[in-house]
């Protein structure tokens, strides 16, 4: 009967029900979008690193992220290959360059030059053309989401990178950059030309170790024997990039603050409506107490109402969050709502509603059953 009473009281006060649900839905949507964007940003930030087959990265000293780094001095690839335990070492050239648009304006781009005979870091998710098209004259590969920024409609159109012609030969999908600067893939040698690098110079060296060698040992050896470089594991490079973009810039803190705001709004609205509803039904709770209900019995009625609000509010909120996610799937906004996040949000919503019930529970705990008699 606890459930029946809680459910009836819950749907009986329509206005209160609507306010509660709006509050929870708002809270869930805000949290889902903010945390979704946070995870999405993480995924975007580490996209290049995650799609490389690197075990170790040789980077210029203090390199903060894949997109934002200086050049190595040159020759690191061969220095690495000469060390024991190193199976392969591949140069990757990365730099921010200017793309000259058809209208004469400029768009900053991140040019990524890799060797395609080695699968260290290749353009992925191709929806038009192929990686091999990179070997055509002046070829670059761009992502669908950034074609408008480059002012090109598709394959075959061209612009200029640092004064040299560049032709779009293939299109990828969903390769976003956190900085919103478009990535352009090209061959290592063409990237060196665009960036005016020496023949043995690059931005990073991607290292794979031999099957019988330990990654940690190879890393320590490289760090000791190569000068003016940082040697990072894939994990460390990811963490550094995420930390740089999300925390050093404050972007991540803003997203987390948004999620916390959502949580606070949720707690306040649910606590307020649950308290108001409890007050409206105070005479009934006093009657229950007079009839001999234990304090626990009465608390259960309130908690069931709180849990009901949590479940319904969560379901509506998540449906909305997924709708927003779907509606923005082709924009530069990347939201990632994982099953883990969905579960965590459910637990947070549940906790929030139960926590919000405390005020109402304190209120009923203080009721004097003697109020059931009109004296």
């Amino acid at each position, binding site marked *: *009967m606890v459930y029946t009473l809680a459910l*009836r009281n819950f749907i009986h006060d329509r206005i209160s029900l609507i306010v509660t649900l709006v509050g929870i839905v708002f809270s869930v949507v805000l949290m889902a979008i903010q945390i979704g964007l946070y995870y999405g940003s993480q995924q975007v930030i580490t996209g290049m690193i995650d799609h490389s087959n690197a075990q170790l990265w040789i980077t210029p000293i203090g390199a903060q992220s894949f997109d934002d780094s200086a050049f190595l001095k040159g020759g690191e690839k061969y220095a690495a290959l000469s060390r024991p335990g190193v199976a392969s070492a591949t140069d990757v050239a990365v730099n921010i360059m200017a793309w000259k648009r058809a209208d004469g304006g400029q768009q900053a781009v991140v040019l990524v030059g890799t060797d395609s005979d080695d699968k260290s870091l290749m353009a992925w998710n191709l929806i038009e053309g192929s990686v091999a098209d990179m070997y055509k004259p002046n070829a670059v590969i761009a992502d669908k989401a950034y074609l408008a920024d480059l002012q090109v409609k598709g394959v075959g159109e061209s612009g200029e990178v640092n004064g040299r012609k560049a032709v779009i030969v293939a299109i990828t999908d969903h390769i976003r950059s956190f900085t919103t600067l478009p990535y352009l893939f090209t061959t290592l040698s063409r990237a060196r030309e665009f960036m005016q690098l020496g023949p043995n110079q690059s931005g990073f060296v991607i290292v794979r170790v031999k099957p019988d060698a330990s990654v940690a040992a190879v890393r320590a050896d490289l760090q000791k024997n190569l000068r003016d470089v940082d040697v990072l594991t894939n994990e460390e490079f990811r963490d550094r990039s995420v930390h740089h973009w999300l925390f050093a810039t404050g972007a991540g803190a803003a997203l987390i603050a948004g999620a916390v705001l959502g949580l606070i709004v949720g707690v306040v609205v649910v606590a307020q409506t649950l308290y108001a509803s409890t007050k409206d039904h105070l005479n009934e709770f006093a009657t*229950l107490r*007079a009839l*001999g209900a*234990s304090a626990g019995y009465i608390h259960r009625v309130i908690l069931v109402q709180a849990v009901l609000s949590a479940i319904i509010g969560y379901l509506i909120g998540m449906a909305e969050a997924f709708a927003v996610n779907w509606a923005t799937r082709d924009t530069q906004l990347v939201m990632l709502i994982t099953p883990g996040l969905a579960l965590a949000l459910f637990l947070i919503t549940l906790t929030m509603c139960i926590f919000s019930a405390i005020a109402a529970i304190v209120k009923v705990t203080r009721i004097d059953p003697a109020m059931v008699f009109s004296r």
Partner: protein
Amino acid sequence: MNAPPMLEARGITRLLGEPPVQVQALKGVTLSLQPGELTLLMGPSGSGKTTLLSIFGCILAPTEGELKIAGKSTKGMTAEQLAELRRSSIGFIFQAYNLFPTLTAEENVMLALDVRRKAVTNPRQTAREALINVGLGHRLKSYPSKLSGGERQRVSIARSLIGDPSIILADEPTAALDGVNGKAVMELLSKISLDTSRSVFVVTHDSRILPFADRIVRIEDGNIVSDVRQKRA
């Protein structure tokens, strides 16, 4: 009267309100309720009737004096122990019915059964039978707002009886009812008080009720001024 009393009150006093404006609502009441009897408590407004009923119902603690329910003193009991005593031994009938507006008649009775934690195989059936016994077999699925005052009070009686408490306490059960409905309610209370495992205690202003009682206690200004037994009509 040789059966042990269902309820025994000795030297009950009660202060109400906060100092300095305290009222001594009861000034030393000694009274016992016998099984199988319907006792009426009558007295002018403000004489302490509701206060005494609340103390009998373990809803209000006496300032001084002792209350025993089924031979057991309530002294020193916690709020939870008192609640347990209420659900095992006491049934209330209120002037304002105090039914749950979001529950049907049947569910109102089932709720009380659930609160009392009585293990019955079919609570709905048990609640139905209780309502049929008060003549509401045709109103099982009605919400309180769709019932007349007399019908509501009969639901309230069925609710007080569910789970077989030994003491039924009613505060002005007929005050909100017209003559016909009031009489029907009293006939019902009179009928249930014939059960020798139960005492019925009714607070009232209503002198139309007098003929239904086995015993009439009068209270004035917090003191019992008369206590007479009579043969019921």
